[in-house]
């Protein structure tokens, strides 16, 4: 019975999502209450589940004899599930206000809620097949969200998105097959499942496959050279971009990479090989590349999207250090980046929603009109830069500490890349704030008439996130104690 709850938290959002267009709601308000209630209920269930963790696995159904869709909750999964469940209700609240304008709300919220379930499915996967299954599902159910506006741009973006996703999945598939063949089991086991006896002298092939598989899963985290879909997908409504493309979808990518690296292939066979160097080089390139593109970009949301590209590779960098500490750093950044990026995206959304400005050069002087939003935006920018006292610093610190600890020369280069990226982040984030607050002496504020801070629904989410950045930044001990426990199984 205890294990059943894992199925429930995955299926409940899916079911309630599917019901949205079918239920006869009298008005919008009712529908929103229904959605939020369902999401919160599910989050509560998830946290309940995390509190008393079910030990045994739960099998949903079987594809073939040994291939099944089954769930199990372990430390890593708990972190991810907890993060997702904490963010979803807030993001949904924000979406209510935002989506007023976009139309087709029912279908939007249908897929939006289903995505919740699918993401949890990834978090709870017991084996690589289940994870792959939900990984593909996620691409599918998020597709309508990106297409949502159905404009030409959105259609093109969704196409690009899907091609990348399928391509990624196709290569990830190869990895899965290898685990199926050369592993002792498909399940995730800390330290990997590869059967050295079966591999024999084929280590190089395994490494190649790892690289392919890594690239495949990291398509979702928009790793260079597979990164261009993410900024394009920025055409989606902001709650989608924020939640899915800063949190759920892309973090899933990172999460899957963690699973594959630490729980399937196992770091022992990978550490110090050309495979590690290859992926690390890719990751380092992405860190710098994403930032540079962000710097060049003048579209507000796209700039944030490029920033996401870079920050996701921070997480991947932690992963490819391939030590428990690296994983810890990666997890830390995964959590904190979620908070930071969702906050900055929401700010961008609020600005676009209230002021109708999409490009950065249009933001001059807005800081005076929407001070709360811009102050929070500046805070999130500083957090992304890694100003001490905000959460970005903590995660960066842990990543760098892990890199230095690993005594790997390339990881040192990675540390440098992290810092270069931090500098570039400072440039692209703070120029926005400076523009907004200091538009120049003779700026004519009358052009911005009628623009003001958004209502409490949007502000609440923003303030909660901003507060979270400080709390985590100043008092990260408990979080990392928890992460220590998670990675302890790897030692």
């Amino acid at each position, binding site marked *: 019975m205890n294990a059943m709850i894992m199925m429930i938290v995955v299926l409940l959002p899916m079911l309630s999502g599917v019901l949205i267009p079918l239920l006869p709601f009298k008005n919008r308000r009712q529908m929103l209450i229904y959605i939020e209630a369902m999401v919160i209920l599910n989050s509560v269930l998830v946290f309940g589940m995390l509190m008393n963790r079910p030990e045994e696995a739960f099998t949903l159904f079987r594809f073939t004899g040994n291939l099944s869709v089954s769930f199990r909750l372990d430390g890593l999964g708990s972190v991810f599930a907890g993060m997702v469940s904490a963010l979803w209700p807030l993001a949904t609240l924000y979406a209510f206000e935002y989506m007023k304008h976009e139309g087709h709300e029912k279908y939007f919220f249908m897929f939006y809620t289903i995505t919740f379930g699918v993401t949890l499915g990834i978090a709870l996967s017991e084996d690589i097949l289940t994870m792959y299954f939900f990984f*593909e599902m996620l691409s599918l159910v998020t597709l309508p969200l990106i*297409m949502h506006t159905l404009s030409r741009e959105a259609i093109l973006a969704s196409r690009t998105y899907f091609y990348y996703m*399928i*391509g990624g999945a*196709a*290569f990830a598939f190869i990895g899965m097959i290898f685990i*199926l063949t*050369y592993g002792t089991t498909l399940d995730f086991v800390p330290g990997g499942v590869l059967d050295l006896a079966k591999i024999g002298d084929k280590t190089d092939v395994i490494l190649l496959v790892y690289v392919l598989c890594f690239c495949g899963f990291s398509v979702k985290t928009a790793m260079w050279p597979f990164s261009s879909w993410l900024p394009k997908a920025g055409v989606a409504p902001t709650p989608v971009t924020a939640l899915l493309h800063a949190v759920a979808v892309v973090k899933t990518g990172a999460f899957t990479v963690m699973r594959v690296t630490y729980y399937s292939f196992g770091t022992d066979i990978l550490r110090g090989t050309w495979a590690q160097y290859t992926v690390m080089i890719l990751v380092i390139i992405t860190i710098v590349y994403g930032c540079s593109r962000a710097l060049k970009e003048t579209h507000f949301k796209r700039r944030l999207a490029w920033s996401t590209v870079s920050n996701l590779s921070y997480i991947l960098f932690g992963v490819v250090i391939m030590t428990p500490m690296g994983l810890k750093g990666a997890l830390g950044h995964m959590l904190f980046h979620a908070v930071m990026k969702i906050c900055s995206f929401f700010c961008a959304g609020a600005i676009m929603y209230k002021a109708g400005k999409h490009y950065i050069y249009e933001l001059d002087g807005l800081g005076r009109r929407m001070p709360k939003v811009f102050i929070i935006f500046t805070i999130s920018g500083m957090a992304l830069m890694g100003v001490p006292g905000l959460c970005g610093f903590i995660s960066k610190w842990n990543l760098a500490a892990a890199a230095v600890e690993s005594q790997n020369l390339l990881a040192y280069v990675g540390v440098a890349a992290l810092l270069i990226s931090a500098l570039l982040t400072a440039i692209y984030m703070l120029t926005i704030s400076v523009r907004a607050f200091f538009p120049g002496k003779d700026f004519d504020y009358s052009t911005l008439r009628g623009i003001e801070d958004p209502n409490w629904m949007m502000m609440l989410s923003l303030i909660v996130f901003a507060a979270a950045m400080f709390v985590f930044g100043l008092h990260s001990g408990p979080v990392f104690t928890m992460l220590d426990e998670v990675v302890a199984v790897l030692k």
Partner: protein
Amino acid sequence: MDFVQNFPFISIILSLFSGPLSSVLSGKKAKMVNVAVISIIGVMSAAVLAYVLGSGQEYVYTMGHFPAPWGNEIRVGCLEAFMALFFCVIMLLSMIGGQKEREAEIEKTKQNLYYIMVNLLLSSLLALIYTNDLFTAYVFVEINTISACGLIMIKQNGRTIEAATRYMIMSLLGSGLLLLGICFLYDLTGHLLMSNIQEAVRVLHDTGAYHIPLMVSLGLMSVGLAIKSALYPFHAWLPDAYGYSTLSSAAILSSLVSKGYIFLLIKIFFRVIGFDIVRDSKVINVLFVFGVAGMIMGSVSAIKENNIRRMIAYSSVAQIGYIYMGFGLGTTAGVIASIYHVISHAATKSLLFVAASGITDASAGSTGFFDLTGAGYRNKLAGVAFTVGSLSMVGFPMFSGFISKLLFAQAAVGSTHKMLPTLIALAISTVLNAVYFIKTVIRLYTPLKYVPTENMTHKTDELFTVTMEQQPFKSVALICFILLNLALGLSSEPLIRLIQNGLGMFA
């Protein structure tokens, strides 16, 4: 001898004779007869399958009780029985789904002729599945060719006749080679019954005598059947034949006819030559290379195509490439994957053809890519069905395509040298599949207002919504196909075990 054991023979004869019978019936009656025959044969095949599974072993049915090596034999194992059942199901659904098109596109007086062809086709397919005699197989290959040609050209416009001619030419080249291969083999072994030939070949192989002629014969037969089943680069006839013929024809041709030849090839590999000998020969490497090329090139052509029917047809080229690649791996796992793919592709491709026609119905009859804009909203079921089919083709978990992809990949890992090319080809091909199928799906769900109308051949006011009630038959067929796909995708285990058993009975 149980009465059930007569069923394979009865079903071949039944469909064979219902053909001439149809010629004297009116179109409507012929249709009834046809549906009845397919259903009866389906039921009989199911009974045979149950029997074989129950007894756990194959049986040989000697025609006219002449013993081997003189008599003609039918051999029934669980794979054969399942194939017969499956082909009946697909054919029935395709016939149901394409009913409206047939009535619209075929001249009233020629309606019954169509059913002759379908019945003959069914009988030839059944014979290809069941027969244990190589020359009988050849004869039915030709019957198959002729009736398929009839199916293509029944919609009598220039395109279809031209397509039929091209189809005939390629097919005849293929059957010429097949015949020559069979003659060689007969020359070498002195037998026509598969089991006898196998014994003889085994002896030849062990002694090492006549190695080259044996290989030549194997090569001729493989190439002949490869041409007939449209393996790249012999696929030139295929897009026209599938793309312009009437719906049922396209569905049947793509999902069954080529599969019949492939099944025959499997039988030749396992029952006639012996798979270990085939594996040692270089023939499978050739098949592998062409299979991989087909996987990629078929998809590339499909991407370039603007006509949805032809696009699906090109996709068939790619899928047949998958199947031959599976053979080419040279492992039993590879062949199992291929057979599974035969089944999954048959189920998916006919689904796609029927769904595509539902979509074109809602787009003023045009198959042009731009005209399909928003059709998913106008014909909801067809839209969903097409999406399901596409996802299955792309290899999305839950649908049949995923399982076959999984099986192929697993098989590939077992083969040392072909592992990486196969896996990478699979990955690339998946992406390419996604490119054209998902492009179409997205197009189906793009609202009209966002698309420049100058690319469209029809006016937007000509479009109308198609509901399920308006197309009851097609809807039933679509729903069945979708369920079939899901069933294959979600619980493939019994089927895979059945294929394994069947192959075991072959050897």
